[in-house]
């Protein structure tokens, strides 16, 4: 019997932003498998032109409602490079703590609210509050902790206010930090239960060899700045990011696509874990071992597990950072800033992968030219080619139906946790 399959998903659910999936298999032959981004363009790079440096971080945070802290961090870092500003050590630690808060918030949101329903046979996480109240409560607890961390450190969870050019606007109160620390310690147990839950999920078996791009952890697992590195051996300094991205425009997408050594590459939690496995906190690596996640893992569905591993990593690292911060509660967190003409480039690992901001300033501290390259922009081509390979591999499986194929394709796209409006900034 020859297989004919037809999948049309218009505005895929449980992802951030608007994307479509189209699959056609006719008489056993794959004729089309597409992942298209149809989000409305916003033209942030154009809007940035002429803006004062104090506005750049506040404006670019609005590129993304989920990773606004990451955008703000990339923005102020690029500006600081352009002006030759070096931030105090305590500010760097606070920024990393805010980054960890965002990573936890974003990963927990994706794992429990966007990805888990597929593995539990649900359309959304909302019914969980009635059928698995303990799972719903656990997810809510972890998410609240992550949001509170961002509130305390960055002033707000969505669209932060304390991350400013020159450092951080304030040092949080010592007792508030210690309260967070004790909640983080309790979160270790919540994550252990989460790991048990995810071990009951059936991760689809699918592999497609690809290239993984991430920051290179030289002192620790990388989050803010440093060299850029690919699993095919390409390596560049932060400022040479364009050599790693190679953006191009396609007909059917409002997001651009990227490539490096092959037709596509991947960024995100799986890329980071693959490229920096030995820099993970031992407790996080132990979780990776439980799931047989070791470099190089070519199964994109394992990005979910890599996110879970990173949750464990950031919780342990946040505890350590708070211990260091409370030792010096009166530390300086801000240095004076004097604008000058120049260019600055920053790379930050945000939840969905590596993010670049690149600004050129005039002598009055106003932007002449800006460029932002978003993780999902870098992943889109990889998602598209994965989709082709997935359909080819799975189409002949016994009992394959349109519905089953639609679910598999949707799960594949969701595994990347795409941030679509971000990619069409």
């Amino acid at each position, binding site marked *: 019997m020859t297989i004919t399959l037809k999948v049309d998903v218009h505005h895929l659910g*449980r992802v*951030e932003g608007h994307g479509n999936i189209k699959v056609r298999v006719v008489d056993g032959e794959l004729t089309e498998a597409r992942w298209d981004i149809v989000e409305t*363009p916003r033209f942030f790079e*154009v809007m940035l032109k002429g803006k004062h440096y104090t506005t750049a971080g506040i404006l670019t945070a609005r590129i*993304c*409602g989920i990773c606004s802290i990451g955008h703000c961090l990339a923005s102020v870092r690029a500006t600081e490079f352009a002006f030759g500003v070096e931030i105090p050590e305590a500010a760097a630690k606070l920024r990393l703590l805010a980054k960890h808060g965002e990573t936890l918030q974003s990963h927990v*949101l994706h794992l429990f609210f966007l990805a888990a329903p597929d593995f539990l046979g649900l359309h*959304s996480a909302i019914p969980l*509050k009635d059928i698995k109240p303990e799972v719903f409560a656990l997810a809510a607890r972890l998410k609240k902790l992550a*949001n509170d961390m961002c509130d305390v450190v960055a002033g707000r969870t969505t669209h932060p206010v304390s991350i400013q050019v020159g450092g951080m606007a304030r040092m949080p109160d010592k007792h508030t930090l210690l309260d967070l620390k004790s909640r983080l310690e309790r979160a270790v147990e919540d994550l252990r239960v989460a790991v048990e839950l995810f071990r009951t999920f059936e991760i689809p078996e699918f592999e497609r060899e690809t290239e993984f791009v991430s920051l290179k952890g030289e002192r620790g697992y990388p989050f803010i700045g440093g060299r850029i590195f690919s699993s095919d051996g390409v390596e560049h300094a932060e400022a040479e990011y364009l050599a790693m991205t190679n953006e191009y425009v396609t007909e059917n997408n409002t997001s651009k696509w990227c490539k490096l050594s092959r037709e596509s590459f991947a960024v995100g939690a799986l890329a980071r874990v693959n490229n920096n496995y030995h820099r993970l906190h031992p407790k996080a690596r132990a979780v990776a071992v439980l799931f047989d996640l070791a470099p190089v893992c070519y199964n994109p569905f394992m990005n979910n597990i890599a996110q879970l591993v990173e949750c464990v990593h950031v919780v342990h690292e946040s505890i350590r950072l708070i211990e260091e911060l409370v030792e010096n509660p009166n530390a300086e967190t801000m240095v004076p800033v004097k604008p000058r003409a120049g260019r600055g480039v920053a790379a930050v690992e945000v939840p969905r992968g590596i993010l670049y901001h690149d600004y050129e300033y005039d002598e009055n501290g106003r932007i002449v030219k800006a460029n932002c390259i978003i993780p999902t922009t870098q992943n889109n081509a990889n998602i598209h080619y994965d989709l082709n390979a997935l359909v080819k591999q799975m189409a002949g499986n016994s009992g394959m139906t349109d519905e089953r194929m639609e679910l598999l394709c949707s799960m594949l796209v969701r595994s990347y946790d795409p941030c679509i409006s971000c990619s069409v900034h």
Partner: protein
Amino acid sequence: MKHLNIERRRPKIGVFDFTGCEGCELQLANKEDSLGAFLSAIEVVSFREVSSDNGSDYNVALVDGAISRPDEVERLKEIRQRAELLVAMGSCACFGGVNRLKNAYDLDEANREVYGDCPKQTMPTMSVKEVVPVDLEIPGCPVCKDEVERVVQHLVWDLPLPTYAYPLCLECKQRYTVCRFEFGELCLGPITRAGCNAPCPAGGLGCWGCRGPAEAPNYDEFFALTAERGFDRQIVRERMGFFGGFDHVLAELEKQEQHEAIHDDHA
């Protein structure tokens, strides 16, 4: 679900996103302490960002994002037709938000700059009320979940819906936040509508006016204050124009100044 053994009226809610960052939708999943109660009080009929099963049988539409492409106009009109109550949620939906900043640039040129010779469809950014009638506006970038909860409480239990006539400054005083002007920083608190509990000044950043104007702010006094404190007029106006909430005030100012300039020329 019954509450005190009585079947509740559960508003059938649809959540719809247009041009924006979806940060407002994310807020609906925040405030975790009351998330379960919030979700039990409503029936989520359509919410693409959190569900893959979306219907059209809603009577309340929460709309976030601005309108910036013809297909969005059509989709919004359809939603308006189905919904008894349409709520514009967040600064993009209420004013156009930061997306409106692009209207100051030539859009063909912008398209060429970003997409080269493969331009994408776009148009000047509009707020929701510029396209369809809006019943209720909750501004904010992002929106405060508290305010969304109050709308639901109003619909379910007829609890009064508070409005905030006073400016943000009052909320800073209430939470003992030191005024950002005292740090030599600009703040739009004196003219901006309260109701967010002023998190930005507390976090070390003067207000950027995401909630738009309070009721009848004293603009003359505000401009006098900022001039006296040495803030560049251009910087003050840029900040007022950031989220689009004060656009009518800025337009009025420009008109006045043009008029005065002509008058001066004649004198």
